[in-house]
């Protein structure tokens, strides 16, 4: 975030939820809300879209299943067909366990990597820690300051909602 912003925190998630709603109504730009645990209802208030990670998982799983199935089918019909007591080479039922396991493996890994890469999270990721207590018991809001400078308005609004520790980034 290169913008100028103001941060302030609340001590309770219900208080936070109410406050964020009010700040939104006032037309303030909320850059981020940092909480120690998922606060339900916040995604709606902030107007988040439905996650697309479900689709990533689905397609990851589909690719995994296809890779698993067709690879086995190729091995036993083209690659190196082996005769096991006269049983069919193209034995669909016995391909199922490996197909299923690979579907699960690919779905899980593609989704988790998509999540980490999209949010640029990973070992040694450089992220801004606004307040060390947000992983403990503080609920922090980050409000962006407009170019024309509406600090006063923001501070006023934050105070009205009962925010504490109002701070400017610069």
């Amino acid at each position: 975030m290169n913008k100028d912003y103001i941060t302030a925190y609340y001590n309770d998630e219900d208080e936070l939820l109410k406050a964020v709603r009010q700040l939104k109504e006032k037309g303030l730009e909320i850059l981020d809300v940092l909480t120690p645990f998922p606060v339900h209802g916040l995604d709606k208030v902030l107007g988040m879209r439905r996650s697309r990670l479900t689709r990533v998982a689905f397609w990851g799983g589909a690719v995994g299943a296809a890779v698993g199935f067709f690879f086995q089918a190729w091995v036993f019909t083209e690659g190196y067909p082996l005769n096991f007591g006269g049983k069919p080479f193209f034995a669909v039922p016995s391909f199922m366990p490996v197909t299923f396991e690979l579907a699960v493996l690919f779905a899980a890994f593609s989704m988790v990597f998509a999540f980490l890469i999209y949010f640029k999270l990973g070992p040694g990721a450089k992220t801004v820690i606004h307040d060390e207590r947000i992983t403990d018991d503080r609920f922090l809001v980050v409000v962006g300051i407009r170019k024309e400078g509406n600090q006063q308005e923001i501070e006023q609004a934050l105070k009205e909602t009962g925010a504490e520790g109002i701070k400017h980034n610069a």
Partner: protein
Amino acid sequence: MYVSPIREPLIRGEKNYSQVTKDILAPMAGKPSIYWYLGISLALIALVFGAWATYQTVYYGIGTWGLNKTVGWGWGITNFVWWVGIGHAGTFISAILLLFRQKWRTSINRSAEAMTLIAIACAGFFPLIHMGRLLLGFFIFPYPNTRALWVNFNSPLLWDVFAISTYFAVSLIFWYVGLIPDLGTVRDKAKTKIRKAIYSFLSFGWTGSAKHWSRHETVSLILAGLAAPLVLSVHTIVSFDFATSVIPGWHTTIFPPYFVSGAVFSGFAMVLTLLIVARKALNLEEYITVTHIESMNKVIILTGSIVGIAYITEFFMAWYSGVEYEQYAFMNRAFGPYAWAYWIMMTCNVVTPQLFWFKKIRTSLVATFIISIFVNIGMWFERFVIVVTSLHRDFLPSSWTMYSPSLVEVGLYVGTIGLFFTLFLLFIRVFPVIAIAEVKSVLKSSGDHKKTAHHE
């Protein structure tokens, strides 16, 4: 928020969020207690015994084991199935109970998942060591080679390779994704620079942003959705090792559901054994309460009863099939030379868990601890009975024989127990044993103070 007046609070004591963080991080801070040192010393002794046994097996070969021409599978496979089963409780708690929105899982899922990972590692050790030539262990994977030969995809043992590796990998990321926010907490509470650097690396730069949380929940939910059928598939495939063969006593269609419920049964017993000690040693009695223990005991009654019915059904089907070999295999199990193992299994798995119908017993920690040990023993014997009694008297009476393990086999088993406790004791020092963020998210609806407020 709706608060059910009948449900017991899940977290005891008047707590706020900061207190929760403090309580859960407490076992990681400071010097470990004398009990921790005592525990890890015992575990390391067992591990050294296992290392000796591994050396013997690798250096001299499988001949150091008590196996013979008739009984080709002994303690190795017994231990493998036992450990995989134990691992299943962790996934059951974190995945299936998450899908069912069971809030009581939040206090126990982290340690149960850690237990899962360690148990799979212990389990995986047995098939590897059973190969004798560990050096060639990579032969089990389909990789392009100069012989243009692939693996046998029709073999349940190969399915096992895929099932166990996938299970381990998916359990690992499921566990780690859940840990990320809590590692952020550890990072922010760290007092020394090195500690801060390590946990900041491990926490993947977690910020607690609302958007991250929302997607984190989606990821957790879908991983749970994937892990739930996965855990069922894993023990199903493990049971295929037996069920797809033509050995009387193994060749039954009841094996997959019977193995899966047996796995959850033994896994919950192991979770109870560990947590009853851990909650006391780590001062987490207000988080892992008698309510949690009771809920787990109810799962034990259910799965234990399913296992009991499966034993009886197997007997019935042996008689009803009219196949004399099948009938002999079961009569031999119950009344043959290994009858003692069969009756230990029956007593520990079918009789003792039924005591949990009494509320006094299922809410008593001492009784639960003792019964959980019984279940652990009983489930080990179940696998022993299935493996050994079905093999030792085969179709040809001239090759009938008995099997008993050698010291090397005992060493391998004891060694994995040592490995299990060593890693678990290290885990409780390095990672938060309870999912901090998850406990906080249920604190308002299931904490003690809200409950009392509701009654006023």
